[in-house]
């Protein structure tokens, strides 16, 4: 932990990413205790008030007079919670499939890798749109769709790792003393692929945050009145010529969060795997 902190403090990009991420995660997590105005309280008299840095609405209000800052904080709660759940679900699914395909090999491996190929050809946005359209838009469906579009990235990378781990001495000796395949996969292979899985997960988090925003922007993600960054953009879109703040701030929130995840993720990859440190 001390090494983690001191390495992080010495990397400007990694630290910047960590701070950005920490600010948005803290803002979202602590939103109910920050004494913000109610994000769903409609005030027709204050609709579309411009940002007033020292006033009651520091980032202005939206077309229904709701406070933009408060909606950003509460929207971040939805967006980040959905994103994290989807990432964890995708990571567990993808890691399990990657380990099974790589360790058992043979027919199972071939079938699973063909499925990965098929999914690579599927424009993910189209797949997500199709599933949400069939099942109806809801947070649960969005999480499942995003996890399903995500597992193949883990599966491919982890399978490749497992192929080389499978022949290592500690696995062979475990087998020699009579350990079963499931036992070896859980106790010997899994701990060794946790690091690459974590690296893929940070990259996926960035992609999934953008996907959630895009789905909500198209009206297929988080449903009103729950605030969400993509949905705020969609609502503000019609007022773009008169109220710049309504579309600018939710977008900035997405950009900065994703930038934070990417910077921190790049640093984390170098920290966990010094081999890739070369020139990134």
């Amino acid at each position, binding site marked *: 932990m001390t090494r983690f902190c001191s390495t992080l403090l010495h990397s400007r990009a990694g630290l910047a990413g960590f701070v950005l991420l920490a600010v948005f995660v803290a803002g979202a997590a602590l939103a109910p205790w920050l004494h913000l105005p109610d994000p769903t309280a409609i005030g027709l008299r204050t609709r579309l008030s411009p940002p007033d840095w020292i006033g009651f609405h520091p980032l202005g209000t939206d077309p229904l007079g709701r406070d933009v800052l408060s909606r950003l904080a509460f929207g971040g709660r939805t967006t980040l919670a959905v994103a994290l759940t989807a990432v964890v679900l995708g990571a567990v699914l993808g890691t399990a499939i990657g380990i099974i395909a790589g360790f058992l090999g043979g027919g199972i491996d071939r079938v699973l890798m*063909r*499925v990965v*190929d*098929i999914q*690579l*050809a*599927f*424009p*993910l*946005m*189209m*797949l997500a*749109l*199709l*599933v*949400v*359209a*069939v*099942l109806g838009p809801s947070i649960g469906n969005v999480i499942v769709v995003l996890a399903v579009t995500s597992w193949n990235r883990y599966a491919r990378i982890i399978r490749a790792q497992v192929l080389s781990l499978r022949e290592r001495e500690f696995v062979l000796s475990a087998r020699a003393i009579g350990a079963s395949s499931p036992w070896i996969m859980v106790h010997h292979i899994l701990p060794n692929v946790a690091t690459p899985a974590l690296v893929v997960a940070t990259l996926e988090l*960035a992609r999934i945050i*953008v996907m959630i*925003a*895009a789905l909500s*922007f*198209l*009206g*297929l993600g988080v449903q009103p009145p729950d605030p969400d960054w993509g949905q705020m*953009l969609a609502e503000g*879109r019609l007022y*773009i*010529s008169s109220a*710049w703040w309504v*579309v*600018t701030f*939710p*977008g900035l929130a*997405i*950009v*900065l969060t*994703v*930038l934070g995840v*990417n*910077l921190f993720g790049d640093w984390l990859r170098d920290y966990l795997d010094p081999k890739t440190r*070369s*020139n*990134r």
Partner: protein
Amino acid sequence: MGRFLARRTGESLFTIWGVVTTVFFITRVLGDPATLFVPVGATDAQIAALNHSFGLDLPLWRQYLHYLAHVVRGDFGRSFVFGRPAIDVVMERLPATALLAATAMALGCVLGCTSGAIAAMRKGSLGELVIMTVALLGQATPVFWLGLMLILWFAVDLHWLPAGGYGRPANLVLPAVTLAVFVAAAIARLTRSSILDILREDHVRTARAKGLYPATVFFWHIARNALVPVTTMVGLLGGELLGGSVVTETVFGWPGMGRLTVQAIESLDFPVIQAAVFVAATLVVLINLAVDLLYQALDPRIRAQ
């Protein structure tokens, strides 16, 4: 070469079959086709007739064969909204999407390769820092928000370019730039890191040591090798670009397949959604096939395998 082409074509067909099967599974098993495929406000007799014409009164495996037989003929049923074959409705929108995606891809490749190469060849300079910062920001920016911001600056504030529409070259600028930024950012980062890897290789040192012009070394020994991973990326971005065009077309009112798909979802026009997913997946498969063939031209080592 002939065998390779045959094998890759076979794989591509298998992949398209997989996509078609997935679509069948999602619409018929996850969803309730009896309601999905019936337009709103249909009478019981119409519903029964439609169910019969879609084969929904058959067991699932017969439904699947029935569906495959229709897909092979390009028959996805009639659009509920347009009353014409769904595949025709989608194909009419294809040129607009192709124009947008191709312009964005070309623009993104030129911009990405150039700036990535500059960043690698001038490592440690201010130029590198600026290029890489912009690339990082470009990768973090959602396509639809960038589109909105470009509309805000160039259409609302400056009145330089139209905020939407279709038909004139000026209409193409903002949507194409929006999509190109994301392509350029990904390609710039990859080009830079792959050139930096190649710079350390022996053949580059030899080429320099024997006194070749720097331009010759760059184009014959560095750029050609660096293009191999970049080509893979272009293939992968093809799919992302189609996905990105869904939101870009919505933001700019561009009459392409993406906007059609979103409209079809809003009006629950399932034949059109299915046809659009099919056409989009086929495009991605074709792009990847083309990329594989391009590899062979770029890298003789792959040809030998």
